[in-house]
């Protein structure tokens, strides 16, 4: 096998690679649109879910922490949405928190994709029966009953439950302390 062969092999592989690259960029350009759209939709959906009273949202930022101000149909402020990622049993739990104008919690959202708790145990924090407890609460109420608040922990998943509660409370405190001042 001489030098020519080596060049030839390189060229053949190059052709294959080029064809492959072409095909891929085609697929990429098609799917990228869908992927981005999906991501946008799911984000927007979550915002709307935790703050149903708002019609659209404006993204703001305070000291590097993002915050979404909700506006109702009339352009009136309808509350805010913040995010938190407290450390649970299996890693961070991405929590989306909606806060009513009266500073009570409107709702919180955690999907299965947002967390890595143990299936069958900690994963129950994604269930409405747990998340629903936060509605309308604020301040010291946002703690587990064991810690003096009014949230029932999930059986055998105190750690996950406490993480969520503490995360929500911390986010709420931040909002009440600093986030409110954004305009």
């Amino acid at each position, binding site marked *: 096998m001489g030098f020519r062969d080596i060049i030839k092999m390189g060229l053949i592989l190059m052709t294959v690679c080029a064809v492959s690259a072409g095909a891929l960029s085609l697929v990429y350009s098609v799917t990228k649109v869908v992927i981005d759209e999906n991501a946008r939709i799911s984000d927007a959906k979550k915002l709307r879910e935790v703050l149903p009273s708002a019609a659209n949202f404006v993204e703001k930022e305070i000291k590097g922490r993002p915050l979404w101000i909700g506006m109702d149909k009339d352009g009136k402020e309808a509350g805010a949405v913040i995010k938190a990622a407290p*450390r649970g*049993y299996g890693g961070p739990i991405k929590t989306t928190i909606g806060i009513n104008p009266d500073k009570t919690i409107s709702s919180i959202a955690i999907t299965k994709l947002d967390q890595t708790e143990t299936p069958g*145990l900690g994963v129950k924090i994604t269930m409405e029966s747990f998340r629903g407890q936060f509605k309308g609460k604020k301040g010291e109420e946002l703690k587990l009953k064991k*810690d003096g608040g009014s949230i029932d922990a999930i*059986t*055998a998943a*105190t*750690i996950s439950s*406490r993480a969520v509660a*503490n995360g929500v409370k911390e986010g709420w405190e931040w909002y009440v302390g600093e986030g409110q001042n954004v305009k």
Partner: protein
Amino acid sequence: MEKDKEPMLFLLTPSPHIRAEESVRGLMFSVIFALVPTALAGMYFFGVQAISTIAVATASSMLFESLYFRLTAGSAGRGPQSLGDGSAAVTGLLLGLNLPPGFPWWGTVIGSFVAIILVKHLFGGLGYNIFNPALAARVFLLISWPVQMTAFPKPSPMFGNVDAVTEATPLTAVKMLLLSHGSVKPVDSVTSNLNLFDLLIGNRGGSIGEVSALMLLLGGAYLIYRRTISWHIPLSFICTVGAFSSIFYLLDPAKAASPVFHLLNGGLFLGAFFMATDYVTSPINKRGMLIFGAGCGFLTAIIRQYGSYPEGVSFAILLMNMAMPLIDKYLSPRRFGG
């Protein structure tokens, strides 16, 4: 076959022609005997629930063992085996002692199955299993049913009413504090109101067999005195836990429990005297035993302090079981003249 009138033929065996009194069965029964005080203490504090859990564990282990023998009778490659060697009883008893009082009976039976069939016999039976059967079963149950495995009833001496009231074991309480990243209370809020005497006699929540440090020490001392086990593994295990928990305590007393607390709590004595010493799954040489014990101790301390489980003894022993073949291979005894 033999006619009565023919003179008896001489018996020929290879030398030696005498042997020590010890037998596998005798050793196993000495372990059972040494566990009696512990079991009684557990029964005293947890009443009927403890009795039934121990009974179900022991009986089902022996049942699975005899079932397995019946199923595989006549298959080649095995010497004679029978329930009579007592090893299944030890496994069952230890499994029972490793469970919380009142653990559901079906879970106990599954545990016995895991111990006897999955971990012991599928690996070749007595003498060949790599992992400690009772412990592997305990961890299997812990992972599978964490709720039931961590529901420890409050002790209620003298067959009092032990229903329903569960309480966190001291180690669990400490772990919850540690996992809350200091956001709740310092560690000594838990440890300071523990009564040393209660810890010693076993008046605390926990698995049936782990609560009474005194009875465990008694049994362990008996085993060492009878030379059923040697002191190497228990001593190095316990000392290492003591040493590392002291280090952690000195580093940050607010975030670590005291060494005394660590020594008296959890399954340390049960593990060190009765489970890490299981012949089959621990190194065979003395030097290896020291390393094995120290490894168990180190892992226990690390898991207790930094892991997500409140108790690390079971995991530590299982992990060291894995290293046992390597230890054995590279720490062979010193040969004469070499």
